[in-house]
């Protein structure tokens, strides 16, 4: 490291020299030293006093809040500081109190600033802001104010200037603070009903309140034992208080806050015009825009239950979005109870229960109506597909379910008074409602005439597309097409054929789409020939080669397990068709060598799973044992590298590769096809540098690798790479060789460095570029090499592994694992970006200034719903299976049902669907 001792660049040297030489003017230094001395000695006295008279134990929020002023002043130290900070993390009222304490501090600083500035205006020329010294520092002692004679002339106008600046500054501060300041002027709530006794709690005791009386915001009210009350806010929101409940109302710019000190309340929130309605308890914050819910805040924790609508609950570091009938507790000791029981004390219990049960059933029924099209275990459409079918898709007829769901909704709304008022208030008034109705009506008309399945074939060699469905009411279908749909369809031109075999190509050349209805079979195609072929099979009983093809066999197997959404592709035909004769011999060779050409079929499936899960599955099958690139994925086996990943990881991908040596060999082989001299150049490179690529790089590796984003992404991305290593000494040797070689070859001297340190008894290595841009650390732990940008991340990874609390054992991950016969994976990719995107939404590039509050809110809302997903792969002898689950049900997502029966949402989404005659059978596509 002799280089360090070399002189720095002249410019830097010069700057440093000047810094070293700069000294504080003696007079200033003496004055400052004396001021600080006074402050320091005073603090020492106080500390001594504190030490002699230690404060009482911290027993609750009040004690914590007593500490806030000294915390804000930066005076709180030691265990109390730790306790308070820990408590603040989980206690919302104390956080709020902290916010207020900070504001108070800010204001007093501004006021102090006025004095200090006025005083300093005479002496200070650097225009510095008032120092951030604790408020217990004494005002500047008289001799600091001993202004130089020359400055006194300007003293008076400078005071005025300072005052003017302050007025402007205070105005600006007030504007930014306004959000936090209670805006309770003129706001009142009224006691609508009172049963028993209700008090206003004041400093001096209780004030009895009576029905009809007004309660100012900012006052605490409390119900007595066996009492109950209903408080009505100006916006129409009703708050029902159970006995021994205590709350305080506050109005802020963000909305109305109900501070629930304790007890049980039910809130019927009126739609909030601007802002939201919040209920804050000691351990959670509930936010709504208009809905009915109950909050029960007790000694053990809080429980929030929703009767109607959607409620968002933030508690601890978590948050939940609850829908009607759902519940959340802030502490495990507060167990769930039926929502009906939770609200049983209410005087409106009957109405709430009606609404609750109606909405709950309705939601279930609608979900069922839409998703309960059942799996299809057989099909007769598959055997009618053209021989040249390359891609086959089979979709459920969803239009019926959609229509049914809407019927159900209408019916329930008609018959239930509880629902009717909800419907009138929330849905019927919305603009999208009529569009929703007509759209659904048209959809179900067509869908209603069709059977449960719509199948589609994409053919090769110019046979076009063929769509098949069974009609349950062929006559109705025909008349519907002829009377309702055809006349309105200008584009595309549609022609209904009686018998394709009788039609001549000239007769149909104008038509874009041909429809043939034969008995109960509906066929759509753009090509007459395709329909003629079909007719030959259906009417004349001609043999269909496709019915006996292996592709058909593969697809039929899927039906054996039940098909929902199914897409299959005959990859051999697709690849053969896409490769023209003029493709180079070389390219063919590469493809051949890669083993990719062995892919026979690709089958994709999607099925509704249990709960809100959706299963996805893709099978890539080969016409023999996998080889080349396709064989790199090893058979499923345990992956211990995943044990280094925490349950909170945002993204993880892990893979088990076949023998790394074989992998490199394959790669060389592949490249050799493209460049026959490659082997020679590799050989000469190895000779020249004294390295064996396969032996030195690939051989030490075990083939298992995990890459994760596990920790904060800012300021440095917390990545973690875990590699299985069989021979760490050799790999280390190789890495050192690489660094040395890179440095030896670099023209500008050393560019990489490799240093060794100690990591709990193991060696830890730091690799970095000399500029410091690409530093990372790695170590070897139990046959694995762990690399991460910081040592802390490595420590964390090892801790997680040792604790056994890892990603693969977390409930969230377990819930996403696909249920199948495999115990292990060959590869997997997991993402849970929701929690990561939440904070990012607040720190949007540009400091959040480019997004309005509303946009930020929306963004947060969207990201909060970003579901976690897991996709995994199994390498089998002749096929690779990809399987995965996602948390959001596709249909629910499509229809907005996850958003609490938000009909407006449904309308918006339906409007986006391609609905026209030729698309009649693919409303679900």
């Amino acid at each position: 490291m002799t280089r360090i001792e070399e002189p720095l660049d002249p410019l830097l040297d010069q700057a440093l020299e000047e810094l070293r030489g700069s000294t504080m003017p003696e007079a200033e230094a003496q004055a400052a030293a004396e001021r600080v001395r006074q402050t320091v000695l005073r603090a020492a006295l106080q500390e001594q006093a504190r030490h002699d008279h230690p404060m009482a134990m911290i027993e609750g929020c009040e004690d914590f809040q007593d500490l806030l002023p000294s915390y804000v002043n930066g005076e709180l130290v030691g265990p109390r500081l730790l306790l308070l900070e820990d408590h603040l993390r989980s206690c919302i009222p104390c956080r709020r109190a902290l916010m207020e304490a900070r504001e108070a501090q800010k204001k007093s600083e501004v006021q102090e600033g006025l004095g200090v500035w006025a005083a300093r205006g005479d002496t200070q020329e650097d225009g510095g802001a008032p120092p951030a010294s604790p408020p217990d520092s004494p005002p500047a002692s008289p001799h600091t104010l001993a202004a130089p004679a020359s400055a006194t002339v300007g003293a008076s106008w400078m005071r005025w200037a300072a005052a003017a600046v302050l007025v402007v500054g205070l105005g600006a501060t007030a504007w930014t603070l306004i959000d936090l300041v209670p805006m309770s002027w003129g706001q009142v709530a009224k006691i609508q009903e009172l049963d028993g006794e209700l008090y206003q709690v004041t400093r001096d005791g209780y004030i009895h309140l009576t029905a009809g009386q007004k309660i100012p915001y900012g006052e605490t009210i409390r119900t007595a034992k066996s009492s109950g009350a209903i408080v009505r806010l100006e916006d129409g929101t009703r708050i029902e208080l159970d006995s021994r409940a205590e709350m305080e109302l506050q109005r802020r710019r963000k909305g109305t806050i109900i501070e629930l000190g304790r007890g049980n309340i039910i809130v019927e929130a009126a739609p909030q015009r601007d802002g939201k309605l919040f209920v804050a308890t000691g351990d959670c914050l509930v936010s709504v825009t208009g809905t009915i819910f109950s909050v029960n805040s007790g000694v053990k924790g809080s429980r929030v239950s929703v009767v109607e609508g959607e409620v968002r609950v933030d508690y601890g570091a978590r948050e939940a979005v609850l829908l009607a009938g759902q519940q959340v507790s802030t502490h495990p000791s507060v167990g769930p109870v039926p929502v009906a029981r939770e609200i049983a004390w209410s005087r409106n219990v009957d109405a709430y229960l009606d609404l609750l049960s109606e909405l709950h059933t309705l939601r279930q029924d609608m979900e069922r109506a839409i998703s309960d099209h059942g799996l299809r275990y057989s099909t007769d459409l598959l055997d009618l597909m053209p021989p040249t079918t390359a891609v086959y898709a089979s979709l459920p007829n969803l239009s019926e379910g959609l229509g049914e769901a809407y019927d159900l909704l209408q019916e329930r709304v008609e018959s239930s008074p509880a629902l009717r008022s909800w419907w009138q208030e929330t849905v019927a008034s919305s603009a999208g409602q009529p569009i929703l109705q007509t759209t659904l009506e048209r959809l179900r008309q067509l869908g209603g005439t069709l059977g449960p399945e719509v199948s589609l074939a994409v053919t090769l060699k110019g046979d076009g597309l063929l769509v098949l469905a069974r009609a349950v009411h062929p006559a109705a279908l025909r008349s519907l097409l002829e009377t309702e749909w055809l006349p309105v369809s200008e584009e595309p031109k549609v022609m209904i054929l009686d018998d394709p075999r009788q039609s001549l190509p000239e007769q149909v050349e104008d038509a874009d789409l041909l429809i043939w209805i034969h008995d109960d079979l509906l066929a759509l195609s753009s090509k007459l020939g395709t329909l003629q072929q079909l007719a030959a099979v259906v009417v004349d009983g001609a043999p269909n080669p496709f019915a006996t093809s292996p592709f058909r066999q593969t697809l039929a197997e899927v039906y054996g397990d039940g098909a929902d959404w199914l897409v299959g592709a005959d990859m051999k035909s697709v690849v053969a068709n896409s490769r023209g004769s003029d493709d180079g011999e070389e390219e063919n060779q590469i493809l051949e060598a890669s083993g990719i050409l062995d892919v026979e079929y690709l089958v994709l499936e999607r099925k509704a799973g249990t709960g809100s899960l959706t299963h996805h599955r893709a099978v890539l099958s080969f016409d023999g044992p996998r080889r080349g690139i396709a064989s790199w994925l090893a058979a499923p086996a345990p992956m211990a590298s995943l044990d280094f990943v925490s349950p909170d990881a945002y993204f993880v991908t892990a893979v088990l590769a076949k023998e790394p040596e074989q992998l490199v060999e394959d790669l060389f082989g592949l490249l050799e096809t493209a460049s026959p001299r490659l082997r020679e150049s590799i050989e000469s490179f190895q000779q020249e540098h004294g390295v064996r690529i396969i032996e030195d790089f690939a051989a030490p590796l075990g083939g298992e690798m995990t890459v994760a984003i596990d920790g904060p992404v800012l300021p440095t991305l917390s990545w973690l790479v875990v590699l299985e290593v069989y021979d760490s000494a050799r790999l280390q040797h190789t890495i050192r060789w690489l660094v040395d070689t890179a440095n030896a070859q670099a023209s500008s001297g050393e560019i990489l460095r490799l240093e060794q340190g100690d990591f709990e008894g193991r060696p830890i290595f730091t690799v970095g570029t000399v500029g410091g841009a690409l530093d990372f650390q790695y170590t070897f732990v139990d046959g694995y090499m762990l690399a991460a940008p910081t040592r802390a991340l490595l420590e964390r990874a090892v801790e997680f592994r040792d604790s056994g609390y890892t990603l693969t054992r977390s409930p969230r991950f377990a819930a996403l694992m696909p249920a199948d016969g495999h115990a292990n994976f060959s590869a997997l990719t997991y993402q849970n970006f929701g929690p990561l995107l939440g904070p990012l939404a607040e720190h949007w590039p540009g400091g959040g200034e480019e997004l309005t509050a509303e946009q930020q809110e929306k963004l947060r809302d969207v990201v909060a719903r970003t579901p976690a997903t897991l996709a995994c792969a199994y390498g089998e002898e002749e096929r690779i299976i990809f399987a995965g689950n996602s948390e959001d049900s596709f249909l629910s997502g499509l229809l907005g049902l996850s958003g609490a029966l938000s009909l407006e949402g449904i309308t918006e989404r339906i409007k986006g669907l391609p609905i026209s005659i030729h698309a009649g059978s693919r409303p679900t596509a």
Partner: protein
Amino acid sequence: MDEEIMEDPPVHAMSRPRKARLPAQAPARAAEKPPEIQAVGDSAPDLEEIYQQHHRRVLNAAYRITGNSTDAEDVLQTVFLRLARREVQPGPAEELGPYLHRAAVNAALDMIRSRKRSRAVPLEEADAGIEAQPSAGPEKRSQHRQLLGALRGALTSLSPRAAEIFTLRFIEGYGNKEIALMLGTSQTAVGVTLHRVRGQLRTVLATFGGQPS
């Protein structure tokens, strides 16, 4: 605030005889004029002694780094308040000097970092180091000012540890070995950090290299 402070000592003075040396002259209401606090109690004399012995070193280091008197005073106060409030336990007397020096460097670096964040005082303007060369012409002084501003700005862009090591080495003049001891690390690590920082600073200051001086 002052009132509370004033009132506290007499109470203890009454309840604890050994505090009799507390300033009896401290008036109960003396908002205008802060009292002269004398060295009192068990720890205060030590502190007073420590203060007298080390404050100049702390203040000077703080001034070199922050480049202005106000910030240097704040740093001095921060460093000694920590001692006064027993947030840190001073070790043996021979270690206290370097400890306080290092604390001053860190507090000063924190200060310029927070200044940079809040932009309350542009670093270039806050600089008073130029007064070291009063004879220089206005243009030259402006360049010096900019150069020092750029250097301080560059320090804030380093990691806190790197900035600390660099400052101790090149502004406060410690050797690699001493720094390694102070920071509980190896000389090599110090060397490596300095090496890296040098590259970074060179890049930042390169913008000045093109200008005729």
